[in-house]
């Protein structure tokens, strides 16, 4: 579904991505992990057409990125950002945010589609005409996910979709993403620094460091603590470092 070959990106003299290659199958959930500055978000930006100076090959659903019109790209792939407060227009209601992609793409029956989507993301219909500041962080992220799904895309790019949320709200949004993926057969490309989120939501992961892919592994290896690269294992060790010495309770 997503094919990236030898992708390099420069910001001025700085080489941000250095020959990155990976592919994501249809319906698969793939994670890109690494520290800030490793280039993981840049890959999403490049796929979304927001990076000017890149070389290599990127294809979505068999078609080269850059050849498609922005309109076709939007229908095929959508993005969900970290901070739903920053990504929603502060003076547009939930209804505006959800109906706008439909209007742009000339899709009718907007009323019914907006209501159906509110139901799908678990947002009560009474929130339809609220503004972003009248919603909680979790509700806002549900709106952002709903907006991304309005055009029934096949690919979702998820940039740290839960790291701005409280722990218990994170669980709700992760469950929602997992359910939507199963229901709609979506392909996920997720960027995160949180390896436990990868373990819950993804099938494979790529470990990025300073613009290079250190390894691509099955999530089973992550769960077993057996990533191949030294750097991957270091990331795992560091995540454990942030945890209590004794394992948390099993419910």
């Amino acid at each position, binding site marked *: 579904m997503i094919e990236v070959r030898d992708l390099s990106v420069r910001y001025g003299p700085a080489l941000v991505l250095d020959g990155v290659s990976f592919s994501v199958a249809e319906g698969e959930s793939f994670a890109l992990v690494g520290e800030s500055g490793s280039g993981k978000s840049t890959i999403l930006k490049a796929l979304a057409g927001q990076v000017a100076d890149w070389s290599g090959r990127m294809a979505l659903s068999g078609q080269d990125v850059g050849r498609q019109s922005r309109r076709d790209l939007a229908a095929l792939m959508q993005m969900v950002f970290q901070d739903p407060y920053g990504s929603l227009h502060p003076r547009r209601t939930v209804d505006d945010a959800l109906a706008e992609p439909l209007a742009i793409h000339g899709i009718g029956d907007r009323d019914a589609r907006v209501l159906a989507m509110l139901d799908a993301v678990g947002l009560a219909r009474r929130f339809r005409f609220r503004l972003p500041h009248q919603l909680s962080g979790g509700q806002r992220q549900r709106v952002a996910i709903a907006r991304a799904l309005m055009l029934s895309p096949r690919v979702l790019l998820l940039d740290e979709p839960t790291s701005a949320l409280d722990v218990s709200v994170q669980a709700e949004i*992760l469950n929602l993403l997992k359910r939507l993926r199963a229901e709609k057969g979506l392909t996920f490309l997720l960027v995160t620094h949180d390896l436990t989120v990868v373990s819950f939501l993804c099938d494979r992961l790529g470990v990025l460091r300073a613009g290079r892919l250190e390894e691509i592994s099955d999530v089973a290896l992550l769960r077993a603590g057996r990533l191949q690269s030294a750097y991957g294992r270091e990331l795992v060790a560091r995540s454990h470092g942030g945890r209590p010495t004794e394992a948390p309770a099993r419910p």
Partner: protein
Amino acid sequence: MTLLSVRDLRVSFPRPTGGRVEVVRGITFDLGRERLGIVGESGSGKSMTGRALMGLIAPPGRVAAARMDFDGTDLTGLTPAGWRALRGARMSMVLQDPKFSLNPVMRVGDQIGEALAFHARLSARNRRARVLETLAAVRIDDPERVYRLYPHEISGGMGQRVMIAMMVILEPALLIADEPTSALDVSVREQVLEIMDDLVRRRGMGLMLISHDLNMVARWCDRILVMFDGRVVEEIAAGRLHDATHPYTRGLIASLPRMDETRAELPVLDRAALARGA
């Protein structure tokens, strides 16, 4: 030895529709020269608790407590001048994002020295020496160079170390850190916590670490207070977090994904039931 003793602390704000809403609803605890963690989610009242202890709740917000004693000083009824003498010198606070807590048009070194100028009588030369010494204590390799930098010229992790330097330069008895690492990259979080921990231990300070991150608090504190809806619902030794009994604490722990995650779905908190129980 008890450093801070709080009984029935309440913080309230006026409601636009009249009446007042209580965001901290009667919490009681003691803090010695130890590391106390306060965990809770947005709106639990954890940050308001920290701010109330620093005298930072401005009207129309209101703070009331049956007792609030800090190291021999009665904090209830302290005058603004009394608070100023205390803050920065005997208790200080590290906030979430150094980008917003540092003065953008003042050199880093001068900002750190400001507290010294306010609270201690030192010559400019001695002040500078103390600042450099403190920068070194927060593991900044080249204090002379960093002294002259402006906040926009330093990274988030270094900014937070500068904040910590500013807060500990007068060796306060109590350090309150409110989400000190949430704005930082994972790779430097550990380091910042380590520096703070080291200072707290070596100087025998009391630390109050306020965070939403259960695991982090469990790792860096001795004791944990879990807050929900303005109240402390559970107090537990950090090493025994897995023995937590309150449904909220247990719910939080269960809702965290794990590295070896195999659950098809994460358990979600039943807020309505918790609110009824609280």
